[in-house]
């Protein structure tokens, strides 16, 4: 379990309780249970307290937590017969984007998402979830396939943003993102999206221009990273706390602004503390969102999706 910077005092208490129990295991007859249990209670209270009032910057850290379930984990746990489909048929297969045919509650669907990787090797292979044009073009291909065969599309968003690289630019990063958004808007099948971690700018929009968009409780969705915003507007990258605050990038604020449709509760202490519970909650939300859209005609789905985005911006936040 990796602790975040703001969980330092929590780490101390949980460490102490663990130490006590380890000590007891080595010295038979030593009874520490009462003391350890007290520490556990204290830790839980502290956890409840911390996570009740996470600041936007703390939420960014939770959203980026390396132990949080990633796209691959959700696909493995929530889908059956997952059959990955690869390549953009033009240049390459981008491993920052995974996707393919699968069954969700026995129903055939197309599932697509950003995958960040879980250790050094996979993180490099996945390019930390930062897609290149090929990733968006693979997604376009899969969405199109789903459209033609009437399969709902599920997207799982978790990316710091599109990859800012030389080749990516030369091969049309902008065009690929724009076309993916356009494809989202033209699908005659239900498109539902969950922001499971980081919804980084245009790289997220390319997948999340959906009929229904949900966000995990401690995920974030923003036009720019707080660090990037701080260095541009404050001319000081260390002002990321202020920037995170100002950008209104939390699931709670985005729901108020009407940008997303629902917030999915996370287990106490974040998805990283109880991955199975977080995955199950996302599964439930996906089921509910798909049920909402079931039986709708292709044309109605397209029109409703467009209308939904045209209407965004109609409400601001209370002063």
């Amino acid at each position, binding site marked *: 379990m990796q602790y975040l910077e703001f969980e330092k005092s929590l780490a101390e208490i949980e460490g102490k309780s663990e130490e006590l129990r380890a000590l007891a295991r080595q010295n038979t007859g030593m009874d520490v249970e009462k003391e350890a249990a007290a520490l556990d209670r204290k830790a839980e209270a502290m956890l409840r307290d911390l996570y009740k009032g996470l600041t936007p910057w703390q939420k960014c850290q939770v959203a980026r937590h390396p132990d949080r379930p990633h796209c691959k984990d959700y696909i493995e746990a929530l889908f059956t017969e997952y059959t990955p489909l690869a390549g953009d048929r033009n240049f390459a297969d981008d491993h920052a984007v995974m996707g393919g045919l699968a069954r969700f509650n026995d129903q055939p669907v197309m599932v697509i998402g950003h995958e960040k990787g879980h250790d050094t090797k996979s993180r490099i292979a996945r390019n930390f979830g930062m897609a290149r044009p090929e990733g968006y073009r693979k997604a376009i291909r899969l969405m199109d396939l789903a459209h033609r065969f009437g399969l709902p599309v599920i997207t799982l968003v978790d990316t710091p943003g599109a990859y800012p690289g030389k080749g990516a630019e030369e091969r049309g990063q902008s065009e690929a993102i*724009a076309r993916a958004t356009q494809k989202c808007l033209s699908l005659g099948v239900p498109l539902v999206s969950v922001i499971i971690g980081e919804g980084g700018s245009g790289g997220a929009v390319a997948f999340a221009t959906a009929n229904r968009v949900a966000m995990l409780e401690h995920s974030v969705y*923003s036009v720019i990273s707080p660090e990037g915003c701080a260095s541009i507007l404050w001319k000081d990258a260390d002002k990321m706390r202020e920037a995170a605050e100002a*950008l209104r990038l939390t699931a709670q604020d*985005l729901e108020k602004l009407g940008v997303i449709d629902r917030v999915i509760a996370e287990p106490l202490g974040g998805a990283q503390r109880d991955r199975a519970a977080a995955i199950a909650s996302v599964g439930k939300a996906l089921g509910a969102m798909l049920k909402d859209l079931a039986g709708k005609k292709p044309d109605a789905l397209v029109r409703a999706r*467009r209308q939904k985005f045209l209407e965004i911006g109609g409400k601001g936040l209370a002063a």
Partner: protein
Amino acid sequence: MNWISNYVRPTINSLFSRREVPENLWTKCPECGTMLFHRELTDNLYVCTSCDHHMAISPRARFAALFDGGIFTEVKVPEPLPDPLHFRDQKKYPDRMRAAQKATGEKEAMLVAEGEMGRTPIVAVAQDFSFMGGSMGMYVGNAIIAAAERAVERRWPLVLFSAAGGARMQEGILSLMQMPRTTVAVEMLREAGLPYIVVLTHPTTGGVTASYAMLGDVHIAEPNALICFAGPRVIEQTIREKLPEGFQRAEYLLDHGMLDRVTHRKALRDELVSIIRMLTGQPPAIKADLPPPAAPDPVSAQAPAAPVPTDAAIAGKSAGAAAAPDSKK
């Protein structure tokens, strides 16, 4: 013509850009250093007469040069909520807005107009880099949607001039949402079977490039315009290597297949007319600086000398009888 009938109280634009500077001002070309007399520069559409460097041009000056006789009618853009996030960095967003409005004389970073270009009716929309870096917020999104709706209503083509550093951070997620919103606008044009021509000008970057600016039926860029998703500095920091000469410039993008053409600003208008008339099956246009189209009911408007390469006399004389599409009062 029936489209006159559903037109209510148009506003007629003066040929003058409101930020017009006095005659005696000199501007130094940032590229070659030549001192250019202001009049000379405006007559040359803000292209350096010595090195051909394309400087920024305001939407009003651009439209004055684009439309016949320099006459166009502004299309009203629905006002978004001001400062929806109560955003504050080192300054408050409303203060930044007021400063930009004062500096430019414009309300926002996008201008929508309709009129005739080479006797070819079009709707045009142009982004103003001098207004908060042309940044795409809700107003810009609304402007593109309004432009597309007007184009669909009239069945006219849409020409869009992009220029922006990207999304307007002060509107947070709502600026990001302009990517899908403006893409809906592009879809409207597509469904209506209307040409959508994008002219990418310096600079067009970030979320703007990754939405409406890269979804044109035809992409034309001005010479040497920076066009990218991630800026060169960000890329150099990421990959830790020096980027090649001309990277992400218009000519480089042309080489990499992202553009149809790179066209000098002075040749742009004729090229747009020609492309649009071919796409819409119209006969070839008369190549000339045309006076504004005759209007059945002349309306009075001030007609100062034009900072455009049209014959000032013609523009001046006809400006009063301008505004063909909007003579109903």
